[in-house]
């Protein structure tokens, strides 16, 4: 092999970069930990505004639609699939059941590396009593 020193060094750098998630995850150890959600324990509100499966995938879409409905169209109420009416308010309706954002929102958001800009406008409910 010609220039073997340089080429082997280059190949090692390439392999190390390509497999970097392996080193990173193995060295960090606790990588297999799943997000740990604390679900609300409210008596009068047993279910969310939509099915859990839908909310897991599309809650951001729903929130975006709510914002559009409220800000642009002046609508206030959202009727869910099970016929219930909910007020389209993030702080009241959503955070009413899930007041502790660090035990709910942030669990998945930090796990998959999402930084939503909710808190650019909304106050984080740090003064609400946490059940």
């Amino acid at each position, binding site marked *: *092999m010609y220039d073997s020193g340089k*080429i082997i060094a280059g190949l090692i750098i390439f*392999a190390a970069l390509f497999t970097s*998630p*392996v080193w990173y995850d193995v060295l960090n150890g606790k990588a297999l930990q799943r997000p740990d959600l604390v679900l609300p324990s409210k008596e009068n509100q047993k279910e969310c505004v939509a099915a859990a499966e839908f909310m897991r995938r599309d809650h951001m879409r729903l929130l975006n639609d709510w914002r559009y409905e409220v800000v642009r169209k002046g609508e206030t109420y959202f009727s869910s699939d099970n016929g219930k009416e909910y007020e389209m308010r993030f702080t009241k309706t959503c955070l009413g059941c899930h007041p502790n954002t660090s035990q709910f929102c942030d669990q*998945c958001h*930090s796990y*998959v*590396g999402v930084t939503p800009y909710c808190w650019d406008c909304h106050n984080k409910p740090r003064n609400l009593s946490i059940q």
Partner: protein
Amino acid sequence: MNIVFSLLAILVVIAAAVLGAGVAKLYFLFGVIIPYASIAVFLVGIVSRVVKWAKSPVPFHIPTVAGQQKSLPWIRNSRLESPHTTLGVIGRMALEILFFRSLFRNTKMELRNGPKLVYGSNKYLWLGAIVFHWSMLIIVLRHLRLFMEPVPSFVFAIQGIDGFFQVGLPGLYITDILILAALSYLVLRRLVDARLRYISLSADYFPLFLLLSIAVTGILMRYFFRIDLVNVKELAIGLFTFHPVVPQVTGVLFYIHLFLVCTLLVYFPFSKLLHMPGIFLSPTRNLANNSRMKRHVNPWDHPVRVHTYGEYEDEFREKMKAAGLPLDKE
């Protein structure tokens, strides 16, 4: 014909993923076994290709590169185009790898009325290539949020810049638009110009269609038919920590995307995409143009048995003396 073949090949790949993961629900095969196998093929393939290249003899540097060679002190030399130092070579390589310097020199030839042959600069190929490659790099780095736990801070920085415009939710990434635009241009470029179409092979269309379908499935999954990302990350982390789990992801779009990426990884070491490691081993880019300063001896020259005059005289001294021939040494 070439384009039809490439399109059919892509459709077969997509159909395999739809049938395998969507209909037959072979989640472990498509989510664990095929990704492991394709990563192995990619790594071993690239390394063995590079080792094979490294075994072929290194040519002498090519002095007729695009800049003036360093020679006499009063002739101005081009330090980056025709470098004579290692630092200059690193500079030339950096320009090539980061900014595609040689594509920037791309020219176009046209026969105008007259008849007159005119040459002009043509930067569109360079623009399409650089937009595609940089978008691809940023997109791959963005994917590290699903591969690494905890998510490294530079990934957040990239996401912040890429999603700068904060359009919609999930936020629109600029690179998603750019990669589609660049790849579409690179496909159309081959189709619109009859001469380019004539020299385009299936191996030219296939990688473009492959990358395009990877980008499209990814974009569909982000903006239109979302999947539960927590399950995706769990699958990825399981793969990278060698504790593979049975994938909980159910969206067929995810398996199409993953299978297309696996196809790309397997296709890579056997195709034109090898220019990725190949650019580092390009003799016109990585050899210093220093033949006026340094003597280069051909390393694979066969050792020639020489017989000098001194040795000749030693051998025939007596006979030469007897014949009265003049001698260097008495």
